[in-house]
């Protein structure tokens, strides 16, 4: 196994162009686990840690551009106020040590359906900034996940940054695990309210081959919410929202939980996060 260690972004892109089969590694919290469990040996590892550019984030026009090397810990500390949904999800990742190493971009690169950052990224319409020696492009998050651990990156592309709009309304994340911490999600869910456009965003984790949204649920809820009067959400509406979210999932039975449990729990999490979000929106 070769270990490639570029020190600049330009070198990293060149290396990836030359060795498209190289697996990028940042915190190593996914890649190293896979290697240690012998689930495959990449021909080469492309270590992005020395690339200083990736460690920065910036803000423009209501968007945050989060470099691929920004750890969960920094995201929580430095951006938590502007990205509450993503920050909540980040707090549930692994242990403090893992959060010091792991990154959202790494989560995207691995594209595991159980990755914690996917649901809030989906709910807030994030963009993935992919780059290669050929140029740069923005991939809408909804088009990024292609299959179990497969994403829309071309073989020569690397993730430069994730772009997430400032929260324009309440955002909540919920995750169920088989224990209280350091656990892969049995299933997870994120909701984001977008009052400026009277829209609702959702993200479902660990309950389908890819992270996905629940478009029908989003559309239904956006039409039902009393955006101006801010009256309470009728129980029937919340229940229906939960149902539509659960219906959008296609979970399986596995070692962490059953299909039926996931369907049930998604509906619960959808109702629950909606309750939290709407309470915040109403300012009570």
């Amino acid at each position, binding site marked *: 196994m070769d270990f490639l260690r570029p020190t600049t972004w330009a070198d990293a892109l060149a290396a990836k162009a030359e060795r498209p089969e190289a697996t990028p590694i940042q915190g190593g919290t996914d890649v190293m*686990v896979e290697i*240690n*469990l*012998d689930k495959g*040996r990449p021909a080469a590892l492309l270590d992005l840690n020395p690339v200083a550019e990736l460690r920065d984030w910036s803000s423009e026009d209501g968007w945050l551009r989060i470099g691929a090397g920004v750890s969960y810990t920094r995201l929580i500390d430095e951006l938590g106020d502007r990205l509450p949904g993503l920050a909540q999800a980040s707090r549930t990742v692994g242990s403090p040590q893992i959060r010091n190493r792991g990154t959202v971009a790494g989560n995207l690169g691995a594209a595991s359906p159980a990755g914690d950052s996917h649901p809030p990224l989906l709910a807030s319409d994030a963009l993935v900034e992919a780059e290669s020696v050929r140029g740069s492009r923005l991939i809408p998050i909804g088009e990024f996940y292609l299959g179990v651990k497969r994403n829309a990156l071309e073989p020569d592309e690397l993730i430069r940054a994730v772009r997430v709009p400032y929260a324009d309304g309440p955002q909540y994340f919920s995750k*169920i695990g*088989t*224990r*209280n*911490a*350091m*656990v*892969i999600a*049995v299933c997870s869910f994120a909701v984001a309210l977008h009052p400026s456009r009277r829209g609702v965003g959702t993200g479902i984790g660990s309950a389908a081959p890819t992270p996905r949204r629940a478009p029908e649920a989003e559309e239904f809820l956006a039409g039902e919410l009393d955006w101006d009067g801010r009256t309470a959400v009728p129980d029937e509406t919340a229940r229906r929202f939960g149902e539509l979210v659960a219906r959008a999932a296609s979970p399986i039975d596995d*070692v962490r*939980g*059953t299909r*039926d*449990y996931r369907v*049930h*729990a998604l509906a*619960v*999490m959808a109702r*629950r996060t909606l309750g939290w979000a709407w309470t915040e929106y109403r300012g009570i």
Partner: protein
Amino acid sequence: MRYVGQPIDRLDGVAKTTGAARFSAEYPYPNLAYAALVHATIARGRITRIDTGTARKTPGVLAVITHGNAPEMKPAPKPNQFDMSTLAAATSVNYLNTDEVYWNGQPVAVVVAETLDVAREAAYLIEVEYAEYPAAVDFAAEEGNARPQKSTMLSEADGRKGDAEAALADAPFALDLRYTTAQVNHNAIEPHSTTAYWDGDHLILHEGSQNVAWVRDHLAIRFDLPKQNVRVISPFVGGAFGGKSFVWPGTVLTALAAKVTGRPVRMMLTREGVFRTVGGRTPSIQRVAIGAQLDGSMTALIHTSVCQVGRTGGWSEQVTSVSRHLYDAANIQVQQNLVGMDLLANTIMRAPGESIGSFALEATVDELAYELGLDPIELRARNEPARNPLDGKAFSHRLLMECFEEGAKEFGWAGRPQEPGSMRDGRWLIGMGVAAAYHPAWRFPANLTVRLSDDGTVLIRCGLHEMGMGSATAVSQIAADALCVPMAAVTVAYGDTALPDTTTAGASSQTASVTASLLAACAKLDRAVFTLARKTPGSPLRGLRRADVTARDGGLYNGSRGESYHDILRRAGRASVEARVGADTRLGEIADQVRSMSKFLLDRRRWVKAACGAQFCEVLVDSDTGETRISRWLGVFDVGRVVNAKTAASQLRGGIVMGIGLALTEETLVDPRNGRIVNASLSEYHVPVHADIPVIDVRYLDDPDPTMPLGVVGIGEVGVTGVAGAVANAVFHATGKRIRDLPITLDKLL
């Protein structure tokens, strides 16, 4: 006593927290080589081809050992109750001396290389082909093939009083329930590791072990060496819980690899390697049936179990033992059964039998209490026996109801509404549960020497084992009190076969076993020193009788007359005085074994000895998702005299944490198609983490058992017993749901 009972910091605490303590994979040797295992991927069959070509050509590889080229080893001895060391063979397989595969994960090759990475890389490159045989690997499907377990001298597999089935049929009230528990694994923080080297025909081994003498005896047999040619060194063990009691393949194969390469070899198993080559706790299927009068007095108690053993070995657990002792039922029937499987041999794991047996029994007792409308503690009080229920033997000591009483008071038990599902805090349903803890007290022969030197220091040489529980600290405290010297003057040498064979660190027996010998040796030493002083010209103690003299402040005194040990030895011109317990000849050893075995059996005829306790648990269960959180825990224990208040509480607490894992999260998943463990890693096998564990309040009554040395009863295992029962009972109280299948995972609660 100045030290016994005090919360003294463990003596090796600083060494461990600073990294100075050396574990078995940390001994540096010049020219050290590293070994890695290749595991079989079928459950049963024969190897038809092994391609090691690419592995051999990998730069840095020193040897690839398979059944095709491995030196011959002697087979493991047949287990024999009269020679306990024969139990050390975890399996009967003669590793790499056979082309047969007996379990999915059995080592089929060892790679030795210049570095660990090269060894693991090359192991990955070996290709093996098999002819597969039919295999029984699905425990649930094999239940019908179970056969009655054989009783041993140490543990009876069945028992009866009266006619329990008839009494059950006639009982005004009866429950007849089925329980299942999952396979679980120890997962000590230190994976099994061995560093081995050969010095001519002497084998030296660094090995994390709960019984260094067994490892020595076993390897001497396998490599056809005299016992004294094998030395096993194991001063620090990074947790064991039963998983390091026997000799597993990695140990034997490291010694073999060192022999083949002529170099010191280290093998540190990966976590996966531990799952594949070191057995865990058997899964179980249990039946508990109780017949009772309407006032709660039990007329019938039936407890039967089915567990698995590997075809090549496996520990037979005493799952129903708790039902022999806990309740005064008029008719009792207990029966343990085993089914042989083509799986890795299971092994002992903290309270083998009692941990899962107490779950089924205590959940049934709780269910009975609810059905009869009685408080679960009141129901227990109504069935508390005066003598051992099964056979009428006397209890040496039993304060079980006192534990319940103190616990109920401290936990606020009386304030709880009995109605299930009646306590709530927002979305969380709250429940409180209680269960009895019970574990037999054992004592085995232990050899040691105690030496008093003329500088006033005391050296105890004793092959005991320190897996984190504070054994050496406890021994120092006891010796310092026995000889009336400061603790700082006492040193304990342990964890080495160069020291006298002590005993196994298992069955919660080590401290009691060592204490008996230690007190005897200290008494001998005291007599020897006094005799020396009395005879030495000029001694202030001359002419006195022992009864006139008191040991205090590191010397012997009669009022102000007397002198320090230092002065006694100096005056007599002696550098040291030593006392020994245990023979140092083979003949003497056999005599000792016979003597201690007869004492053991006599004791067993006379008394039932045990540690017991009451476990109180409060859970929160999410009403919508079934997520279960332990919010409070109190354990009150009757464990005889406590030697060290700090390490004892830690050990009891650790047992409770392990029990919470057994109750809620831990489950080794075996693929029913091929017998392969599918979650052989800590990322998918879930031990509890800090966030799962509340503050655990541990108390003990500190009342010495009159039949045990110093009143000490073992505490290593009782903490884990009753825990799963208390959790299941609390979950019922919270939700109204009885979950009779461990672990209690989310989906079972919906």
